C-alpha cells in the first residue's frame, strides 16, 4: 500500500465522483455515513453535550447536581492539587505505558515480521488475547499473580530463588504491567502493519553493504518506522488515558487517574458536575491527540512514494 497508489487511486475516485452529479448522487455518500453519523451525533453527541452542560452545574449539599452555571469545577481542576495531580499522574502513567507498549510491541512485531511464517499466525493469535478477554478477567489474573500469596511469589519460592515470599501487588509497577497488557495489542498491530509495508530487501541491502544487525536497525528500521511508532504510541497513550479500572485495582493507593476520579465523583461522591468536568477534559485531550495523529498519519507515508 504505497502512498503513491493511494494518491493516484484517490485521484481516480474523485474523477469517478465528479460525473455530472445529479443531486441524488451527491447525497449518496451522506446516506452511507448516515448510520454511523447518527450513532456518533445522537448517541454520543447528545450525551457529551449533556456532560458539557453538566460540568457547569452546581453541586450543592447532598444533591447530585443543581442546575446553574459556574466554572467552579474547572477552577477546582486547576486549583486542587488532587485533581491537577491526577491529570499529571494520568498523563505520566499513560506515557510510560505507551512507551513500554510500543517497545514491547515493536520487538514482538519485529519478531513476527522476520520470523518464520509458521510463527506468524500463532503470535498474532497471542497478541489478540488481551483484546479478547475482559478487563475484569485481566485484573483478576494479575491479582492472583503479584501478591505474596500469588503465583509469582509462590513459583520463585518453590524454585528456591527467593528466601521469603514477596509482593509486587499495589505498586506502580503492577499498574503499569496491567495497563501495558491492555494497550499492547494496539501498538503491536499498528507496528506490524507498518513493518509489513517495508521491503525486506532493505535489510539485506544494508547487510550487504556492510552493516551489522544493530547498525541496520538504527540506520534503516528506526527511521522507516518512526511515524508508525508515533501512531502506535499515540494510540496506546489515549487508550491508557481512558482506562481506570486496571491501574486503580493493581496500583498503589495514591494512584489517582482521571478515569478513576470520574468514576469516584460520579458514583461514589454523587458529584456529577465535577465528574463531567473531568470527563470533558479527558475527551478534549483525547480528541486533540487524535487530530494530531491524523495529521501525522497523513504525512507518515512520505518515504513510500
Amino acid at each position, binding site marked *: 500500500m504505497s502512498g503513491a497508489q493511494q494518491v493516484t487511486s484517490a485521484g481516480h475516485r474523485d474523477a469517478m465522483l465528479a460525473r455530472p452529479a445529479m443531486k441524488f448522487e451527491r447525497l449518496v455518500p451522506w446516506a452511507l455515513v448516515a448510520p454511523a453519523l447518527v450513532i456518533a451525533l445522537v448517541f454520543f453527541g447528545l450525551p457529551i453535550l449533556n456532560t458539557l452542560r453538566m460540568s457547569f452545574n452546581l453541586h450543592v*449539599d*447532598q*444533591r*447530585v447536581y443543581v442546575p446553574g452555571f459556574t466554572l467552579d469545577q474547572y477552577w*477546582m481542576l486547576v486549583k*486542587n*492539587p*488532587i485533581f491537577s495531580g491526577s491529570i499529571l499522574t494520568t498523563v505520566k502513567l499513560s506515557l510510560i505505558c505507551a512507551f513500554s507498549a510500543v517497545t514491547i510491541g515493536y520487538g514482538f512485531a519485529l519478531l513476527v515480521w522476520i520470523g518464520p511464517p509458521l510463527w506468524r499466525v500463532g503470535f498474532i493469535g497471542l497478541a489478540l488475547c488481551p483484546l479478547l478477554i475482559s478487563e475484569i478477567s485481566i485484573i483478576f489474573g494479575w*491479582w492472583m499473580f503479584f*501478591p*505474596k*500469596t*500469588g503465583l509469582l511469589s509462590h513459583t520463585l519460592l518453590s524454585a528456591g530463588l527467593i528466601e521469603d*515470599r514477596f*509482593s509486587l*501487588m*499495589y505498586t506502580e509497577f503492577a499498574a503499569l504491567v496491567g495497563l501495558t497488557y491492555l494497550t499492547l495489542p494496539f501498538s503491536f498491530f499498528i507496528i506490524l502493519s507498518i513493518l509489513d509495508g517495508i521491503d525486506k530487501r532493505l535489510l539485506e541491502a544494508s547487510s550487504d553493504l556492510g552493516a551489522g544487525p544493530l547498525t541496520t536497525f538504527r540506520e534503516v528500521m528506526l527511521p522507516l518506522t518512526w511515524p508508525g511508532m508515533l501512531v502506535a504510541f499515540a494510540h496506546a497513550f489515549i487508550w491508557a488515558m481512558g482506562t481506570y479500572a486496571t491501574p*486503580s*485495582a493493581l496500583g*498503589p*493507593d*495514591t494512584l*489517582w487517574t482521571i478515569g478513576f476520579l470520574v468514576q469516584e465523583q*460520579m*458514583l*461514589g*461522591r*454523587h*458529584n*456529577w458536575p465535577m465528574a463531567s468536568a473531568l470527563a470533558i477534559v479527558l475527551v478534549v485531550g483525547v480528541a486533540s491527540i487524535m487530530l494530531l495523529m491524523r495529521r501525522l498519519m497523513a504525512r507518515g507515508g512520505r518515504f513510500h512514494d
Partner: protein
Amino acid sequence: RAGVASAKNSFAGENLIVVSWSGNYERVFRETVIEPFNAEFGTKAETIGGWDQIVSQIQAAPADNPPFDITVTDEYVASAGLAGELYVKTDRAAIPNLEAVYPWFHETRPQDAAQYGIPFGGGSAVLLVRNSIGVTPDSWKHLWGEKLAGRITLDSGAWWYTLAIPAILKSPDGRLDAMYNIKTAEPLIAELERLKVAKWFTDGAEQANLLVQEEADAAMSYSSDTYTFLREQPGEYVFGVPREGTPAWAEWYMKVRGTKHGELADLFMNYLLAKETQERFLANSMQFVARSDVQVPDHWNGYPASNEDYHRMFQVITMQGWDGIMADYQAFDDRMKQVIVKTTG
C-alpha cells in the same frame, strides 16, 4: 394466614427488584429473604447487587421507570437519595411489623427522614486481626500500636467510617459530632496521619484480598464481610467490636420513586421485619437486625441486648452529620487523600 392467601392471589407472578449490598450480603439476603418470600407469596422478587452507584443509577433513570423497586440504603445513600427526592414515603399502616423494631433506629435519624423506608438492621465496623499476630481486638487503639504498624488496611473508599474511629476514641461519650465539621475534624484527621497503613482498600473485595494475599494482617472490617472470614477461614482471624464502640450504619430499605410495584413493595417491607425473616438473616451474618425479639446465633458474641446497648455499641454517622460533611465534602476528601499519601509513604 388468610392475609398470605389473598396476597398470594393478588401478587402471584409479580416482579420486584430489590437492591442489596453486593457480594456476600447479597447472597445471604437472597437465600434468607428473597427466596422464602417468593416461596411464600408466589412472586418473582429478585435481588441485584448494589453499591455506591445506587443513587446515580436511580438519578440517571427516568423518574417513572426506576431500575429497581426497593433499595438498601445506609445514611450516606439515604441522604443523597433524599436530597434528590428519589425515595417514596412509607405507609406505616401497611407495615405492622414496625412495632417490634428497636427505637434506636428512629432515634438516630431525623423525623422526616425516618418517614422513608423501614429499618431492616445494620452493620458496623469490627476490628479484625490475624490470630498469629497475637493482638486482642478489644480496642481501636491497637491500630496505632507497634504490633500492627504497617500491617493494617483501612477503608479509603468510604473513608468516613475510618475517620469515625479517631472520633470515637477522642470523644468522651463515644460520639461522632467532631467529625461533622472540617475544623473540628482536623485533629482526628491528624490522628489518622499517624497511622502506618499497609494498603488502603476501596471496597470489600479489596479488603478481603489484602487479607487473603497477606498484604495486611489487621483490618477495619465491615460486619457484612466479616462473617465470610469467619466461615471460610475459621480460626485464621479474631475479631470483635472494640469496647469504645464502633462506627456503624443502619440499613433502611426504601421504596424507589416511580416504582410500579408499590403494594408488593409494602408487603415485602413488612416481610423484611417478620421475626422469622430477621432470625434467618441474622443466623447467617454478623450484622445486627432491627427487631428486638430475635434469637441470637452462637457465633455472634456480644450481640446487643437492648436499645441502650445499641446506643453504646453503634455510632452511626447521622444524616445531620452528613449535612455537615457534605458542606465541606471536597475539603474532607482532599484531606483524606493527603492522609493516604502520608500513611502509605
